[in-house]
């Protein structure tokens, strides 16, 4: 059995460590498609988080009742039901947003984050942990979409959440609100996040080597370093 981690950790790991967008590269389609503006990204992330949390909760509650062979089918029905609820509520109450997001609300069903968390976590853990895990992943997705939407909206239409932040003299970068801009921004973000992680790892490694040298430990092999987790 794996080590029991604290409840807080269950939540925070989704924010960065296993951030669904940047680390697991799941749910790419909505990340690219709806981030023309921040508000669309926020709406999409909230809708996805809602579905994620509730389907994780239900799946973790009924996990022992569902025969193993048909679990995926059962999960999909549960997820699809929550997505339909979100879709109907958005159409009824937030018509403009629902129009802007178009088919991407129904497409939350096939967002791999949700089925991924259901299969990898909720089907093996209790309700409390599952909800925290889902919330963490949802917030991680939220952060990713706001960053993407922010960059694209500020550079592409000079605004942030509809408020103008760049002066009129700044010619908007049209490419940012075109599909091409989505791919490029996402690629660059992912690359830079990899770069940051690598640099941090290298620094930790060097610090450890220096520490070992100080205490006079001579042989610093890769195994020793691996054991120390760097």
């Amino acid at each position: 059995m794996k080590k029991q981690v604290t409840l807080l950790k269950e939540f925070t790991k989704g924010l960065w460590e296993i951030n669904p967008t940047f680390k697991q590269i799941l749910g790419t389609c909505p990340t690219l498609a709806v981030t023309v503006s921040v508000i669309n990204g926020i709406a999409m992330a909230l809708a996805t988080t809602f579905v994620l949390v509730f389907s994780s909760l239900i799946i973790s509650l009924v996990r022992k009742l569902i025969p193993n062979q048909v679990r995926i089918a059962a999960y999909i029905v549960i997820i699809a039901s929550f997505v339909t609820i979100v879709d109907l509520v958005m159409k009824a109450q937030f018509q403009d947003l629902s129009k802007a997001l178009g088919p991407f609300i129904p497409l939350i069903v096939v967002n791999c984050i949700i089925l991924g968390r259901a299969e990898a976590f909720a089907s093996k853990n209790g309700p409390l942990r599952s909800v925290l895990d889902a919330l963490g992943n949802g917030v991680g997705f939220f952060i990713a979409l706001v960053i993407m939407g922010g960059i694209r909206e500020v550079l592409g239409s000079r605004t942030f959440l509809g408020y103008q932040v760049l002066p009129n003299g700044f010619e908007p970068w049209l490419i940012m609100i075109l599909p091409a801009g989505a791919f490029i921004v996402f690629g660059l973000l992912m690359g830079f996040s990899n770069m940051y992680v690598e640099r941090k790892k290298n620094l930790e490694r060097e610090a450890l080597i220096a520490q070992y040298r100080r205490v006079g430990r001579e042989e610093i092999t890769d195994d020793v370093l691996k054991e120390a987790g760097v």
Partner: protein
Amino acid sequence: MELLIIFISAALVNNFVLSYFLGICPFIGVSNKTSSAISMGMATTFVLVLTAIVSWLLYNLILVPYHLDFLQIPSFILVIAALVQFVEMVIKKVSQPLYRALGIFLPLITTNCAILGLALLAAMREYDFLESVIFGVGAGAGFTLALVIMAGIREELDLADVPKPFQGAPITLIVAGILALAFMGFAGMI
């Protein structure tokens, strides 16, 4: 004429991958070799066309007449999952070589949003039967085209000196962005 427009629109102008962002996961995952890209494209096209047919029948003969259109999402996704499973079984029985070529890609297709996206878009645009099928063929052609072009580029890219943090998914996305720009040249054809 209308049919031709639908085909060109789905395949080139509004390419499923490069302008609707449908099916990005396989686009990044299976685009490192041309041969597997072609297989994946063919398998997806096949399922896309079948989905177009079945989902049209389901939507227009069952869901709409009985006012059950609020069950659209669950029923579509179940039909797609069943369809993929069925296709896998049939191919396994009928042709072993084809199964070896497409087999491993089929399970991946269920969660490919291009499939569900196609069913939803066709229902949303109120296409008739023939239009839906052509839409499916066009979407499949567009998906295959994007995938194969990408795989060709990535085979070359392997030899290029890409900075380490950008290797893999990041550089693929950036290249896809440039490809999307190129595909914008098709706009205005319809």
